[in-house]
């Protein structure tokens, strides 16, 4: 259940960053000052689309999977737990890559990207815990 809640929160973070890329908001609310730099850098695009757009798709998918896993008919289905481990594991890898770019290439931090990375890490830990429990 907690994974679904976290995925929903992450979805709003991703939508916020996507709105920025679409020009719907002027500047990001950013206490540490590097959000604009990160989100206007060449690495803010992936496969021709803003990274935030992929983030929205990712969180929608993860939320759907996490919510489905809470339904009674999937309660005993280990595949649902395994799917969540796969999704969140992929998220950890991609977030790690983005965090590396912030630290070593762009030399700036976007607090919203860091929040997203933390959410994904927590989701991954919960998914693994859930999967092991289902065993």
């Amino acid at each position: 259940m907690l994974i679904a809640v976290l995925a929903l929160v992450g979805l709003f973070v991703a939508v916020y960053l996507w709105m920025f890329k679409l020009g719907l908001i002027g500047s990001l609310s950013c206490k540490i000052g590097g959000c604009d730099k990160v989100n206007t850098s060449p690495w803010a695009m992936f496969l021709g689309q803003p990274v935030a757009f992929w983030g929205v798709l990712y969180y929608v998918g993860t939320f759907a999977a996490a919510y489905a896993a809470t339904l009674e008919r999937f309660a005993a289905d280990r595949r649902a737990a395994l799917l969540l481990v796969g999704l969140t594991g992929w998220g950890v890898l991609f977030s790690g890559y983005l965090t590396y770019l912030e630290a070593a290439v762009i030399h700036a931090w976007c607090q919203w990207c860091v929040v997203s990375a933390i959410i994904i890490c927590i989701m991954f830990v919960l998914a693994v815990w859930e999967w092991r429990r289902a065993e």
Partner: protein
Amino acid sequence: MANSKKPALQKQFTVLLVVIAVIGAAALGWVATRSGGGGVAVDPNLPLGTAQAFRLGNPDAPVKIVEFADFECPACGQFAMLTKPDVHERLVKTGLASVEFYVFPLPMHANTWSASNAAYCANEQGKFWEMHDRLFYTMDLWNTQATKNPDKKMKQYAAELGLDASKFDECLDSQRHYPNIKASGAEAERQGIGETPSFIIGGKKYAGSLPYDEIKRLVDEELVRLGKADTAKKGAK
């Protein structure tokens, strides 16, 4: 999940998700309206004017530092406040380098066109750099999050800088420099600039803000390449 076997709990959980979704959607809606979103109100068919570089220092200085910046970009503001004073004092005034500044308005900054227009209009009265500094130092007072009417703030700054108010207001209201601002952005894109601030020093591009020490090192390298290393030794530290 074991808990999901309890329908009542499942129902409560779904309600909780809906509540979170409503709160999140409301927060995003508030952010979008507060920031005066909707992007930049610029005619897409605006003709392309002339890209203008605003120079600081001796045009014959051996090294040229070209900067591309957006007046509403926080990183550009940090550079203008923290690094540019050193560049000015130690590299430009000593004759080692000159600075050429190009406006590069980014699409997500709705008020940057007004600010760029103000800088161009101040330039008509010989006060581009004064307006440049004022805009960067006060960004949080006129940026998209602060106001939907940035021109009012621009006119206030013009008055405070001692510009002829009627000429400045006429220039600002006419938006006659918009084609030139567009051309300046096009020039940045032509040079392959993808973020602000970006720099070209010695013919090489550098994306992102640079600290003074790094700029000094690059200028020194260029002086050595030009066979003017002695100039660097005599110059600033």
